[in-house]
């Protein structure tokens, strides 16, 4: 852009003059960064059951509808949720398993749907990358089963399928998983096969940071008028979550919970 280069040099030069203490090399910078204090809670303290319970509790506090089911009950549970919604036309990302697309509803799979087509749908069904119990947050990395960003935005009703093994207690535990510095916990629990076969794979490559992330904590909301919380301004007004008990709960101690990374 015109004049951009000179302003760039000018700003960087001003910054350089303003920061005589800046690290002289990449190694020194890494050392500065490595010395940062991180005394906050990183690894959760709850066992797997309590962690999922907290996740459900937090989601309900946000007015999200939550149901729990066993892995084999999932297709039936999805169908029941869709029926109870009173809606007919749904969109879904291309990566979701075929058995999620319950019969008796109008499905459009997002192989490049236009915004108007997505807008016309009454609801959307997707998988998720992770759930953070502490804040009741659902994290999407927008893989093939989680859908493009716009897919979970325009329809007024979002049904999100979350596996219990995807639920971590703390936000730092999510960041550990996202960085791929540790297993998702599934391998240790031996439930990976179960997870991928019927529940959709998040498609995340380990060791690489996500390019797109959306953290969702409850339905869209505003408190701009007299601090009164109103649900659903522009995003979906209704968030439904099915928590799939894909690991045998009650048998895992905190040791198999995601530990935070260093």
């Amino acid at each position, binding site marked *: 852009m015109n004049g951009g280069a000179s302003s760039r040099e000018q700003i960087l030069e001003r910054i350089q003059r*303003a920061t005589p203490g800046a690290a002289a090399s990449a190694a020194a910078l890494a050392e500065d960064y490595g010395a940062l204090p991180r005394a906050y809670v990183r690894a959760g303290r709850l066992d797997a059951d309590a962690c999922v319970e907290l996740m459900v509790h937090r989601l309900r506090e946000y007015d999200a509808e939550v149901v729990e089911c066993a892995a084999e009950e999932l297709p039936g549970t999805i169908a029941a949720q869709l029926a109870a919604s009173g809606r007919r036309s749904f969109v879904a990302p291309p990566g979701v398993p075929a058995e999620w697309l319950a019969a008796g509803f109008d499905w459009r799979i997002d192989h490049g749907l236009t915004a108007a087509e997505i807008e016309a749908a009454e609801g959307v069904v997707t998988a998720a990358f992770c759930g953070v119990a502490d804040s009741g947050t659902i994290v999407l990395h927008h893989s093939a089963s989680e859908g493009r960003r716009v897919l979970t935005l325009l329809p007024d009703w979002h049904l999100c399928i979350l596996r219990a093994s995807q639920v971590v207690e703390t936000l730092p535990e999510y960041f550990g998983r996202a960085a791929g510095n540790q297993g998702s916990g599934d391998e240790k629990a031996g439930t990976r096969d179960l997870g991928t076969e019927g529940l959709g794979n998040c498609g995340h490559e380990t060791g690489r940071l996500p390019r797109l992330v959306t953290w969702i904590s409850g339905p869209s909301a505003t408190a701009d008028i007299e601090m009164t919380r109103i649900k659903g301004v522009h995003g979906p007004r209704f968030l439904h979550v099915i928590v799939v008990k894909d690991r045998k709960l009650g048998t895992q101690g905190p040791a198999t919970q995601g530990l935070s990374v260093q």
Partner: protein
Amino acid sequence: MAVSAAADRPILDPARARPFPEAALPVLRDPQLRKNVAHAIDVIQGKRARLVAEKADWQALRASASRIKDVALQNLGAYLEEFEARCTAAGGVVHWAADASEARRIILDVLRAEKATEVIKIKTMTSAEIELNPFLEAAGIRAHETDLAEIILQLGEGEPSHIVVPALHVNRSQVREIFARRMGIEDLPDDPEALTAAARRVLRAKFLSVPTAISGANFLIAETGSVVVVESEGNGRMCLTLPRTLITLAGIEKVLPRFRDLEVMLQVLARSATGERMNPYTSLWTGVTAGDGPERFHVVLLDNGRSGILARERERQTLRCIRCAACMNACPVYRQTGGHAYGSVYPGPIGAILTPQLQGLRHAQSLPYASSLCGACYEVCPVKINIPEVLIDLRAQVTDQERQRARRFFDPLYLGLRVAHLVFARAWLFHAAQCLGRVGLRPFTRKDGWIHALPGVGAKWTETRDLRGLPQQTFHAWWAERAKGAK
């Protein structure tokens, strides 16, 4: 209604705004406005206090958050270059703007290249700082604000009075009046639900049709070249995903070293800002992604006085700010005056230190004094900005600046201070002054030992509070007498 009368419109340009004590008067005389502000602040404060209390590691999070920002600022040049390289590699275009006018020009150039006639916007205080909307308007490009509070202000021709809840000074019946008039809806009830639904209907069409958007940024991630926007309504997600072209305007201080630093920032930001464990939506994106979101993405990195703040050791902490507004919610002065009195888009304690510095202390010199130095802002700040410390330092700078002006030599205040300096430095003069004071004040001292009214300049004190009369004996005299008696 006051909001629509142009003459009453608050001035948020520090170069033109009146000094804080004058600008605060209209609010102090408007009980409705004060009620609106106090209500909003009480609600947020209560929620924040509850959620911070449940976080046992709150102080550790604050310590990490402030140090992460320190390391980022200390090495700002390296991290900005890293951000630029990664963002560019991911398909973004990075621009550098030394000041507001350059940023406006860059944005206009991009919009012209897109042949844009209108643009949708996510709430960004940085764009208000560079006065982008009126500039685009003059260039024939209509900017549509999409955040509910910003719509209220844009349609009502009002000005933001808070950085997180910009329309907190407007109540529901005022919003109803603005929407009914500007959206042409006759029978609009005044409950927030109906008002929000009205905004949703009007904006949906804009989101689906306007091909260019402008956003701010909460964080830039050097490690990945990603941008993060934190919001509640979903208007942000709309602007970030639906248009063909996205322009992000970000202050250079927004950069964080690594992706994982968000594990700290996202924990402290929503709790401090809105009293939520997490805000409804946080979006992160990296350059452009085929098939998902805009095809073209521009980032404008704005200096506009920030590198000057960076250069000053004590003031540098100002740049740690993550714009959560906890300081204004906690501030006893803001609570009384609301945001407009600060004459800047950044009100409250953070505004009192940020605005004069962004102006190179050429304007807004009254703001460092718009504080009782009680320290409540420092206590709640999630990145531990010692605002009182910076305020005091800025006061010293303002004073130094004033002293250098010749006309200040005969100013009564400076004259008085010079005399005081003369007297306090010499014991005999000090004792003489005490004697004089005792005798001089005696006629005004009532039987209860208090002075209730003084004439002249002294009235400035006694108009609002009483003054204790000088005791008839100084401590020195009493001590000397006591020692004599003991002998």
